[in-house]
């Protein structure tokens, strides 16, 4: 698969401070997450890709060209910044029309694209209201809509769920997934929230201190483990004792328990222990690893746990 974006040996220094240190990665079709703490170099990498900053060394190409040398390529790119960027006294329809024209679309096309994009973003009914009266969730959706209004080949989202409540965050992640799966637009999704990246992205690049520390398919990070998770309605303690009598390794996880076992015999032991303890089974299944287990936080830093995939 051809890379939409390719970064090779990219280094960026600001007056002696290294923001990116010899970073290389590629982004192809799909949703790719860049995960990292504040200051890890995510925004710097995005700005270099967009041609807004010059790298100290290395190269960043998007859609086959270096954006700083050919700014017309930006008419095929979308960018949603993390911070506020919406005027309060303008309607969403007028704003998106202007943004589409700024991306090179003639006025008549820009108007119809603006209306269509606001419909897809769920803001069609509100399009003639000044944006100053919008909720945070609506503003985030306008920010995403302005990045999509000119039908870009790839869109770069910088912390799209920042400042949203859980419901708004879920809506935004749904919209991001829809942008790729229904609209066919590839996405580079920058975030410091592992759960967002895990639930939304196909691939992941982890930055720490300006360096890539992990990269790969999200599913390879969260593949099934040899651990079985079990919840019972009652008699949990008796059930644990019955399992231990059968030499099964058990870990109490509060509501449920984890049972270690690589072969089918563990299920026979579980069945027998359930009968013996008279414990009604509520839930049982193989456990998937979560990204958070791979990058446990230690203070303000990411710490690799055993099992993490080194790039």
């Amino acid at each position, binding site marked *: 698969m051809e890379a939409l974006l390719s970064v090779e040996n990219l280094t960026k220094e600001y007056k002696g401070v290294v923001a990116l240190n010899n970073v290389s990665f590629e982004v192809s079709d799909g949703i790719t997450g860049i995960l990292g703490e504040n200051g890890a170099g995510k925004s710097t990498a995005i700005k270099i890709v967009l041609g807004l900053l010059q790298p100290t060394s290395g190269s960043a190409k998007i859609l086959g060209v270096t954006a700083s040398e050919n700014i017309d390529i930006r008419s095929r790119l979308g960018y949603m910044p993390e911070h506020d960027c919406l005027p309060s006294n303008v309607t969403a329809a007028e704003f998106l029309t202007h943004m589409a*024209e700024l991306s090179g679309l003639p006025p008549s096309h820009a108007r119809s694209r603006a209306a269509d994009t606001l419909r897809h973003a769920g803001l069609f009914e509100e399009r003639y209201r000044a944006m100053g009266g919008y909720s945070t969730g609506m503003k985030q959706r306008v920010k995403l809509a302005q990045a999509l209004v000119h039908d870009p080949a790839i869109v770069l989202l910088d912390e799209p769920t920042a400042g949203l409540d859980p419901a708004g965050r879920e809506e935004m992640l749904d919209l991001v997934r829809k942008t790729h799966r229904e609209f066919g637009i590839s996405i580079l999704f920058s975030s410091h929230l592992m759960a967002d990246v895990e639930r939304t992205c196909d691939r992941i690049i982890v930055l720490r201190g300006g360096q890539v520390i992990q990269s790969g398919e999200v599913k390879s990070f969260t593949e099934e483990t040899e651990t079985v998770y079990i919840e019972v309605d009652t008699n949990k303690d008796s059930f644990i004792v019955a399992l231990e009598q059968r030499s099964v390794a058990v870990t109490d996880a509060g509501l449920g328990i984890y049972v270690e076992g690589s072969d089918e015999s563990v299920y026979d032991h579980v069945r027998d222990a359930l009968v013996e303890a008279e414990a009604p089974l509520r839930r049982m299944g193989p456990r998937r690893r979560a990204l958070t287990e791979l990058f446990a936080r230690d203070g303000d830093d990411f710490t690799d746990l055993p099992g993490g995939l080194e790039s």
Partner: protein
Amino acid sequence: MTSSKNTSSTASVQAREGTVFDIGYQHYDGPREGRNRARLSVFKDGLKISLGLGRGVRAKILPWLFIGSLMLVGAGLAMAAITIDRIAGEGTAHTVGLPTHSDYYGIASIIMFIFAAISAPELLCPDRRDGVINLYLVRPLTGSDYIVSRWLAFMSVMLLIAWLPQIILMAGLTLGASDPADYLKDNWLDIPKFLGAGAAIATYSGTIALLVSGFTTRRAYASVFMVGLFTVSAPFTFGLAQELGGTAGKWLSMFNLSNIPMHVNDAIFGTTSGVTMDAPASAFDTWILVSWFFLWTLGPAALLWFRYRKLTP
């Protein structure tokens, strides 16, 4: 017959009932006009902001109040000249020294300065305060494209308000003359003169106002600073220049910011207007006064461009 009626009625109901189909996301395969379209869009947006077009009533009040006032000045001067000529005989208005094209900017320049001070911040401050500039600069548009387009938009509005009242004055004086053709033949040279003098005042005040706006995100700060600069520089430099006298006084008088374009107006019309009459700087050679004007116009323009050239989100 009944059956036919029912069928017709059903068909008509079906025709009236529409069905909305969600055809899903449609990719755009129309023209993409790149950087030039982006520049034009920033220019058009700048015009709309300056004139309050496509915005609420509040946004329209100030620009159109100033434009209306300036047109009233032009129309008032024309009406006064026509009335005096009609009552006291042809040429009386000229004989009694009623203000005309060469004097208009002396009267109107203060209104133009205030208009520039109030309108210019609207073009630049909100874009940086709200962060909209971040969205401009990630499109096929550079910081230079942005500021040049905004500057051109504001200059267009400033030229409109500089020239329109003069055109009204010229039209009034021509139509009010006993022989309009003769009047136009004798006075047509006033047209390039007022166009040139108007361009000088418009570019000077507009560029300085945009430069001030380029360094703050608060519109009020920019407006107050600009008005303060012009109102303080006049009495301050006049008083000190009188005190010092000689060449030093003349040079100090050059720093009266509201007089700088008026010296160009005087040079173009070959007269001394009321506002520059007492200024010691008027004694300087024309080339010095014109060079001083260019320094104070091109310098701020270069600073403004430098400020936005490397701007990044």
